[in-house]
């Protein structure tokens, strides 16, 4: 009989036959998410003198299929911040549950005047995202955090699936980084310009960006959510229709969409 430690507590081979370990090792290493499945496209955000405007459309695509047309990708967190999620929708829903439980826990000890600020929230999210990428199991999102920091100043920052953080007077994820950022940068090249920008101009800039994105991003939609965060609170509208479209620039484009000739 085998008295060596590796046999301790195991069924005896001479009585029960050799253990069949076929189901144990698949011969392949463990794999986690290699690509997102149901995705949301760009999120855009811009700072202005007393707050932040952020927007994202309401589409969740399954590959190139416009699968869900009523998915809200802007999420309010307490009265000081709004998160915009680009990327995998199921990972967004996971993070939403995580942050809801954080908010509930937080509400047990502190009243709203000492609630987690957008900056606190961004730091927390960056740790969550970096932890998951270090486990080789990333949450496939690019997130914008918009709101007010601890000093009640406008705050806008991003964190991506690698845990990379970045902050700027205007930010956009996905296609928006290419198509919307140049438009917003023209308006707010630096923090000083953002500190002068009015609320209505900021909203208009975001609306212009959403229009350009609908024109040129094939994974976008003409229904979107927009939020304005100021000291007065969060003003979130989740069903805005894109207005004043002009497809004149596409006059000669044929073969896409529903036209016949």
């Amino acid at each position, binding site marked *: 009989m085998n008295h060596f430690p590796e046999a301790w507590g195991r069924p005896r081979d001479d009585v029960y036959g050799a253990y069949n370990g076929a189901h144990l090792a698949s011969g392949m290493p463990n794999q986690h998410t290699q690509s997102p499945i149901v995705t949301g496209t760009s999120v855009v955000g811009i700072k202005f003198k007393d707050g932040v405007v952020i927007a994202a459309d309401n589409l969740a695509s399954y590959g190139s299929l416009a699968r869900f047309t009523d998915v809200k990708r802007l999420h309010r967190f307490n009265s000081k911040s709004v998160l915009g999620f680009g990327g995998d929708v199921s990972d967004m829903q996971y993070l939403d549950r995580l942050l809801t439980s954080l908010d509930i826990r937080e509400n047990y*000890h*502190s*009243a709203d*005047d*000492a609630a987690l600020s957008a900056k*606190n929230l961004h*730091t927390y999210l960056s*740790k969550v995202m970096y932890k998951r990428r270090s486990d080789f199991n990333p949450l496939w999102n690019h997130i914008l955090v918009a709101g007010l920091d*601890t000093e009640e100043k406008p705050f806008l920052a991003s964190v991506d699936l690698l845990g990379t953080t970045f902050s700027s007077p205007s930010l956009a994820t996905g296609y928006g980084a290419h198509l919307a950022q140049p438009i917003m940068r023209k308006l707010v090249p630096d923090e000083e310009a953002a500190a002068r920008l009015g609320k209505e101009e900021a909203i208009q800039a975001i609306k212009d960006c959403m229009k350009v994105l609908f024109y040129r991003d094939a994974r976008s939609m003409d229904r979107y959510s927009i939020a304005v965060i100021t000291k007065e609170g969060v003003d979130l509208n989740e069903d805005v229709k894109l207005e004043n479209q002009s497809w004149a620039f596409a006059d000669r484009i044929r073969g896409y969409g529903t036209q016949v000739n």
Partner: protein
Amino acid sequence: MFRNNYDNDSVTFSPQGRIFQVEYAQEAVKQGSVVVGVVSKTHTVLAALKRNAEDLSSYQKKIIPIDSHYGVALAGLASDARVLSNFMKQQSLASRLTYDRAIPLGEITQRIGDRAQANTQNYGKRPYGVGLLIAGVDAKGPHLFEFQPSGVTQEMLACGIGARSQMARTYLERNLEQFEGAGREELIKHALRALKESLSQDKELNVDNTSVGVAGVGEDFALYEGAGVAQWLDATFENRGEGAESMEVDS
């Protein structure tokens, strides 16, 4: 014959509904030298009387800075206070790392309260033999919390714990109305006067046995000891007998 059968552990109630181990732990707090704390609208001050075991030894540390925004003063078993203060340091650092936020004082107080309570309800554990005053500033302004070995925590306007602290509490109760509007220096004077009330006749506050901790809105928690407290001792007890405490110096 008449031995107390209900004080062997902290999980057994006496028929009168008391838990003796917890009460004994509270006695340990009363053996510690006195510490007081006060808050105003803008500041919070801790003052403590340090003891030395013998003339040749150094003085026991009474105020421990935990994070840049707060510190604690202890009365009771210093070694238990070290366990708690190390825990508080870890939690405070974790808050700064994960949220980039100075931990709210109410939250850290609740956390040590929960830890201490667990020790009064598990077999084989003992309550902490130390009381703490937790003072500092957070997003909601200056705060003072009291922590007891039973796990009870309370927010206080002013508080004194430790040996003969009843005298200090009496002073604090008499002058309560003045604290809220007091400035920094005034609040420190009140804390030192309250501390002095608790001293026995043959003792005096001096630069060796007095510790002061101050935090305020826009001002980090700072610990003052030795020469650092001399100015306040002079300013607070200006009518002290000349030369009574001065050392003999060879000339």
